[in-house]
């Protein structure tokens, strides 16, 4: 019989069982037994010491989204745990598989306001897929494997384990307890054949069907099935922000990105189709605009693995619960092959207007200050769709989404549902660690970069090769834009006095360049990519830049501003 081991050691053994390769973490009092045992596991598992626990969780999210493998976070109790809460909420709304393990005070001190005690389970419950307090060493193996199983299966999401110090210290006869089944939990619901038949009939009958898809395609690995479905049915499609990369940007069926700052065509087509097929997306209000007018003319089919998404926001004619890959394969089998649909002018006209009124002025202004979109386009030109693009939140995010190109899945990582500033830099670290063979570029604003700038230290220590592109406008740009458009140009508290970012990069030993003029830009970008290792490119962009097109909040998705003066009017 094997010797008994501590709960802390059982924890590392359990992580090995789950094939965990990387842990993002930060130590502290109530997790010290676990950190102590790491000493013996350094060769098998890499620990990345971040500079702030928020950095750990966003890095784990970036890791998970680049690889599809759950990201792992290890922190201490109290402030260590509260510091990860933002990222846990972010992972919940963006369906990202992460497992967070936090230290907790010993059981006999629970509920007694002990030093660094917080009710983590109470805090985490509404923002996790599952959370559990480990109070005995015997439960470690069970809880860890169950955590990973829940995080990665079905609609993925974050799991929090609250690991009491006595469970870490307690002794156990360790044996792995793999989890492949929980009787109350159905991660892969059986797809109804009769619903597939009915959906296929609706698609065959439709004159102008339109597909809107989201991250569900990437999460289920349904990229090929989606492309085959669109091809066989000759159906055009639009992607949500988080769905980007699921189809090649050059796919002829792809009409662009949906939503507030999306392309004209997919938003207009939403209002002109006679059948809307939504796959792996959840009708976020940034996508639907005003719900009362959203696709009211169309019949609607909603396909999602999460039954509670069906009918939550948009009343549907048919809801199919199931894995996107299986449902799309089943539909492709059933639908009649088509070469054309009755779509005619909508996409062509929309694209022409958008090119002339929005895209060209943004990315080829010719003279004047550098536009932020121009920087994205310039980088896109250099990487030819091969890079993994990470963004922060704000104008930088929308422009990175609009002007990047993607030729393969898992190439776009951004905080969608929560819109967490500070996500970008640590997420890029995690993404690069998950996909070392890929070029990772992160676009950020000067506001968001400074929310987690301390992770430059992690980059330095780990030597993580991320290309940091700062679209520096000395404003909280996105908020400034809203103040200009909707708050009578009252620029309350959005001007930023910034440091010299290249000086900070230098202090961390990270090479950098500051760019002021259009002429310097291409060579600076070339230099950034030519050089191995991390790089900061600080581009001074037009301070009062805007992101267009824009569907103002509360408007229908075909009420679209093209610039400060013009609105789009389909049919004019």
């Amino acid at each position, binding site marked *: 019989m094997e010797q008994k081991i501590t709960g802390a050691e059982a924890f590392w053994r359990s992580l090995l069982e789950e094939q965990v390769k990387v842990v993002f973490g930060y130590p502290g009092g109530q997790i010290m037994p676990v950190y102590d045992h790491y000493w013996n596991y350094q060769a098998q598992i890499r620990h990345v010491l971040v500079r702030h626990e928020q950095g750990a969780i966003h890095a784990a999210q970036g890791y998970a989204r680049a690889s599809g493998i759950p990201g792992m976070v290890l922190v201490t109790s109290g402030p260590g745990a509260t510091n990860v809460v933002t990222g846990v909420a972010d992972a919940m709304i963006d369906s990202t598989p992460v497992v967070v393990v936090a230290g907790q005070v010993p059981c006999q001190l629970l509920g007694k306001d002990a030093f660094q005690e917080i009710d983590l389970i109470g805090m985490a419950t509404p923002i996790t897929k599952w959370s559990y307090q480990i109070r005995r060493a015997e439960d470690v193996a069970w809880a860890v494997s169950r955590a990973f199983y829940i995080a990665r299966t079905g609609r993925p999401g974050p799991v929090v384990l609250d690991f009491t110090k006595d469970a870490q210290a307690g002794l156990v006869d360790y044996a792995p307890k793999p989890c492949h089944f929980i009787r*109350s*939990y159905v991660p892969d619901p059986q797809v109804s054949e009769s619903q597939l038949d009915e959906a296929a009939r609706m698609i065959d009958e439709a004159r102008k069907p339109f597909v809107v898809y989201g991250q569900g395609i990437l999460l289920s690995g349904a990229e090929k099935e989606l492309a085959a479905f669109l091809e066989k049915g000759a159906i055009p499609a639009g992607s949500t922000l988080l769905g980007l990369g699921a189809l090649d940007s050059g796919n002829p069926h792809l009409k662009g990105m949906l939503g507030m700052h999306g392309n004209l065509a997919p938003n207009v087509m939403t209002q002109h189709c006679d059948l809307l097929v939504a796959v792996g997306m959840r009708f976020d209000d940034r996508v639907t605009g005003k719900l009362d007018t959203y696709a009211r003319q169309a019949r609607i089919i909603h396909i999602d693995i999460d*039954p509670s998404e069906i009918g939550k926001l948009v009343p549907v004619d048919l809801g199919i619960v199931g894995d996107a890959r299986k449902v799309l394969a089943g539909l492709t089998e059933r639908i009649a092959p088509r070469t054309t649909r009755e779509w005619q002018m909508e996409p062509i006209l929309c694209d022409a207007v958008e090119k002339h009124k929005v895209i060209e002025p943004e990315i080829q202004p010719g003279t004047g200050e550098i536009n932020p979109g121009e920087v994205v386009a310039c980088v896109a030109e250099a990487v030819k769709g091969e890079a993994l693009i990470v963004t922060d939140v704000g104008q930088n995010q929308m422009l990175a989404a609009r002007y990047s190109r993607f030729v393969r899945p898992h190439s776009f990582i951004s905080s969608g549902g929560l819109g967490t500033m500070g996500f970008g830099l640590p997420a890029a670290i995690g993404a690069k660690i998950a996909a070392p063979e890929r070029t990772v570029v992160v676009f950020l604003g000067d506001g968001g970069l400074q929310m987690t700038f301390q992770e430059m230290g992690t980059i330095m220590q780990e030597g993580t090769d991320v290309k940091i592109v700062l679209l520096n406008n000395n404003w909280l740009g996105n908020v400034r834009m809203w103040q200009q458009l909707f708050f009578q140009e009252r620029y309350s508290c959005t001007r930023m006095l910034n440091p010299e970012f290249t000086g900070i990069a230098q202090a961390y030993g990270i090479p950098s360049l500051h760019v002021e003029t259009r002429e310097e830009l291409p060579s600076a970008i070339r230099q950034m990519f030519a050089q191995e290792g991390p790089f900061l490119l600080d581009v001074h962009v037009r301070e009062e830049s805007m992101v267009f097109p824009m569907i103002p909040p509360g408007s229908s998705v075909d009420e679209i501003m093209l610039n400060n003066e013009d609105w789009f009017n389909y049919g004019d």
Partner: protein
Amino acid sequence: METEKLFEITAYTENQVGLLSAIAGIFTRRSLNIEKLLVYPSQIAGIHKFKIITRAAEAQIQTVVLQIEKKVDVIKSYYEVDNERSCREIDDVRQFLQERETESNNI
């Protein structure tokens, strides 16, 4: 606006600490008032039963019930307009558990 009615929500769950607040949170975030709440062992050994009476619009209740069922440790959840309930659920739950057991044996 859809009219509000009294609904009786039933949930069969594993006996797990924290489920009560997890389920209550689904009501709190919508400002739904819980008019009556009962938690007790069901007729199936080891399985707990929640009865929740609340006033809301039916469309909202549909999502609420699905979000309750979405919790990992919730086995099944149903709703009915108060006082019109049928007695089929317990058979449903038994059948569900039997199917799951067969499934787990096949893994």
